[in-house]
């Protein structure tokens, strides 16, 4: 084989090894995170022994491990992967590094749905009021994206501008609700907006995981098309056989769905969808065949790390993951960007 091809293949193998290493580090961190918490009846070693069946724990210990910590850790992994993947997809198809899963107004739609449930008590599924409303309203935003995508000659900028408009409109309505809300409603709405992994139950997490795992292969399917779109824009994509309009619409619908599924259960978690793709770009470059899995594992790791710190640093008080992500991830993200400003 030619020396240029050989070097390319060797570089690709190194990148795959990096992704596998971050994946292994995330799984190891998950096991460690399972052993950390404020319970005085469980230390880390006992937790790991009970988890792997080397020790039979009490009912309380089993409940803490499998009903409290496991859903939380699994939600961190799945939620982080989904939001980071959605962010990477959206940045690529809109050709804009500032885009995150919240840009299209999906999160604002979800917040509006939650506000309807919390302040007005209006919901289609009363016993799942906030989740059902948040999901339904974010689906309305997905519907708007589809309608927009079906229009002729809709540009990447149009999607972003419509997303900003949706965010302003939803924000104004939510602000009106908060103006008339009681203290208890206001507190609940504010708490929802923080974004937390404690809300989804084990059955919720299993459902979310199933949905995200089903959607992930679709994300990989678009990798080549995203490479052409993100590198050279629409004309470059068309000359490579890619229809930018339908590709952009399909990718945005996919990423909006992934975002909706997660934030309907967790509340607003935004930073991971912006930071994890950029961290991945700094490590393995912009080839979407590798960037999508790399962003997913970086997102999982980031979310897991932030949540574990958030629930242990001031235990028994738990700082919501949405806050921790920005506090820990923000400076780290800026450091990485500044360190690499000369090396794109």
């Amino acid at each position, binding site marked *: *084989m*030619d020396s*240029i*091809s050989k*070097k*390319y*293949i060797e*570089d690709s193998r190194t990148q795959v090894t990096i992704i596998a290493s971050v994946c292994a580090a995330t799984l190891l961190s998950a096991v460690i995170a399972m052993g950390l918490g404020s319970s005085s009846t469980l230390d880390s070693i006992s937790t790991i022994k009970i988890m792997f069946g080397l020790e039979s724990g009490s009912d309380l210990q089993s409940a803490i491990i499998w009903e409290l910590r496991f859903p939380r850790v699994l939600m961190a992994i799945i939620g982080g992967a989904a939001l980071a993947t959605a962010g990477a997809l959206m*940045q*690529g198809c809109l*050709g*804009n*590094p500032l885009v995150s899963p919240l840009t299209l107004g999906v999160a604002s739609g979800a917040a509006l749905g939650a506000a309807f449930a919390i302040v007005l008590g209006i919901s289609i599924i009363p016993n799942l009021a906030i989740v059902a409303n948040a999901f339904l309203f974010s689906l309305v935003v997905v519907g708007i994206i589809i309608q927009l995508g079906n229009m002729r000659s809709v540009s990447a900028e149009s999607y972003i501008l419509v997303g900003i408009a949706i965010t302003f409109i939803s924000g104004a309505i939510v602000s009106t609700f908060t103006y008339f809300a009681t203290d208890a409603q206001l507190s609940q709405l504010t708490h929802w907006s923080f974004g937390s992994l404690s809300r989804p139950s084990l059955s919720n997490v299993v459902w979310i995981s199933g949905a995200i795992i089903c959607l992930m292969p679709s994300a990989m*399917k678009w*990798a*080549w098309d995203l*490479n*052409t779109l*993100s*590198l*050279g*824009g*629409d*004309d*470059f994509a*068309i*000359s*490579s*056989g*890619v*229809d930018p309009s339908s590709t952009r619409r399909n990718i945005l619908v996919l990423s909006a769905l992934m975002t909706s599924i997660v934030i309907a259960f967790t509340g607003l978690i935004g930073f991971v969808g912006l930071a994890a793709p950029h961290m991945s*770009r700094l490590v393995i*470059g*912009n*080839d979407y*065949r590798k960037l999508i899995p790399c962003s997913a594992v970086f997102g999982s790791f980031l979310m897991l790390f932030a949540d574990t710190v958030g629930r242990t640093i001031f235990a028994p008080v738990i700082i919501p993951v949405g806050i921790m992500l920005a506090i820990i991830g923000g400076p780290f993200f800026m450091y990485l960007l500044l360190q690499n400003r000369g090396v*794109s």
Partner: protein
Amino acid sequence: MTSLLKIEGLEFSWGSNQVLKDINLDVGRNEFVAILGVNGAGKSTFLKCINRILAPAKGTVEISGRNIADMSLMDLSKATSYVPQSVRTSFSMSVFDVVMLGRRPHISWRISDDDHERVSETIRFLGLEDFAFRKFDRLSGGERQRVVIAKAVAQDPMLFLLDEPTSDLDLRNQVSIMKKIRHIVSDVESGKSAIVAIHDINMAARFADRVVLLDGGSIKADGTPSEVLTEANIADVFGVSCDVIPEEYGLSSSLQVLVKDEIEK
């Protein structure tokens, strides 16, 4: 002449501004066609209409007997490859990765050994070995232009559509790129052709088999360089006076246009 590209009654407008008017053109296999015209004459628009980047208001474009409107974009990109005047990138990739994007129409997901080899060959053919693994956005304008041409070559189409492919290149690379396009087009077995929008009349005269002169969105003249590049045509279209001098390049003969001055309107 076996027709590779057949254009009939092509028209295109930006709103009320009609850019292309009733364009009719046949391009055979192994033809190097240079499109000349002033800024805004419709050269880029014309190339984009052949590649479905723009949808014509009227007329038909057929490649190898197939109407491009009925072809999938993937099939069309196997038949044509387009090199834009410039590529502005949002997220950069290595030169090898950019050239590999030319293989996109030929691969579903996995890159084969053959794809690797073709990309490596193309990189060597265009002399990009020294920066094959540098980031695209870290290259000079001329280097980028050569990389995008390499991507088009790796795409292995029947028809190249090149929009000012030498505009950012130094003199040596201008000649080198034109010779390489000429080399590809001259291969009778492959039967490939190229349509090149270009401002350099002398470069067009030296390398093209045929020159199409666009004026105000219509074809003013179409023929061999010596038929089209006359002092009268150049004065009429470009508004400059000139001398057209026969020139020899090795065994081939061509002509050279010496521009004297602009003509007062």
